[in-house]
């Protein structure tokens, strides 16, 4: 499984998304389950999956999947399309 596929699986599991609902352009405002506890779950999931610890500021500032992809790519994790 590629890092991109692992990220997709992580986001689907974390926010209980339907696979058809998911896209790498998805915005936080489009996901009802991306709430404050969802932010924490996502941060835990990112650390478990990629070994990168999102700072609280990073986690809170994420406004969508592209922002997360950008952070992970900065850390050398190739999730881009």
């Amino acid at each position: 499984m590629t890092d991109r596929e692992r990220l997709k699986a992580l986001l689907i599991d974390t926010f209980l998304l339907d696979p058809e609902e998911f896209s790498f352009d998805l915005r936080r405002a489009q996901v009802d389950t991306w709430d404050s506890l969802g932010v924490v779950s996502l941060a835990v999931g990112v650390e478990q999956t990629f070994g990168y610890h999102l700072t609280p500021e990073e986690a809170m500032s994420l406004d969508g999947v592209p922002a997360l992809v950008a952070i992970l790519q900065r850390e050398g994790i190739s999730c881009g399309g």
Partner: protein
Amino acid sequence: MGSLLFDDEVASDLDRLEAAWQAAETFAFVPRKGPVAPSWIEQALASLPGSLQQGHFALLTSGSTGAPKLVVGARSRAEQLARLLHEVQHSEPVTETVVLLPLTYCYALVNQWLWARLFGRALRMTTGLGDPAAVRRTLDGARDAMLCLVGAQAQLLARHFGQEAFGGVIRVHFAGGPFPQRELPTIHRMFPRAQVYNNYGCAEAMPRLALRRAEDGASPADLGAPLPGIELQCDQTGRLLFRSPFAAVGFVDEQGFHALPPGALVPTGDLGRPGPAGRWLLDGRDGEVFKRYGEKVAVSAVVGKVLEHWRGEASYVPTPDALGEPGYVLVLAPVPSEDEARQVLRTLRAHFPRPHWPLRLEGLPALPRLDNGKVDRVGLAAIGERSVHWRQR
């Protein structure tokens, strides 16, 4: 000291139970393969006060915690309750009752064996749904019969006999767990002449507290109204309590004998609240509700909602998360397909905020059952090979 009567002795000779009921000495009627050794029950009987050494009977229950408890009832009270049940359940036209549960279960003992004894009706014993062919023969031959079932048996009946009809059954009672509202159309199809009732109670009530006709409510949580003479209350924490003239007089657990004085308010072990028109609503088992990240989580409400969208059965295993917060694992049976698991997750997302979601969604071919048909929660927790379909991050 009282005497011990085992289920297998009664299965081979029903007169043993009659003799015990007529004898002065208090007796315990228990399964041979029970959760405790006979010596524990003998010691429990010996610990009863002198006033309870005669004219009483005792049954073993494990309750929701799995801890053994010997509940002691007065035979005279049980007979009064059986007479009351005859009236409120409109049982006069019933000529026989088919036993599909162990008679050591208070529900079967009072609603069936004792009722049949008091009103001169026939008692048709079976070995339960483990032998569906024998049950079919008994139901085929039934004449104006009454069944007393637990909710979990509804699905088993539907699986074995869902396409058949048994016109000889005119009363079907459910107790011992959530009322199987979802299976009601199938139950009516299988028993086209039957009035169907939701009976509510607990072992300490010996055993009934409330009743409703199935058609009088749309929710499995609707218990109906308390039986005449019985009072239901809930305390500030939502625990459902009862006061009943038919209740147990005491019980013995690992700590020893506990009296239940006349007029005492006794916990049912459930959570509940008053509903409309004198009815009561069940919110789940006491202990099934916990706080997770500040949210009050009622697992039974989650399971109930999942069952509206899942064709099989569901139960749960209490499990703390990695941070020590209370949580649970939702277990489905049979093992769901990927699409089915996804549908369950959609249901969770649509109806519950994150703290209510399970830590994991797992599957099993079948849920383990106790003899009384209820899910064996201790056994379920001990099964290590459950398939994992989703987990919280």
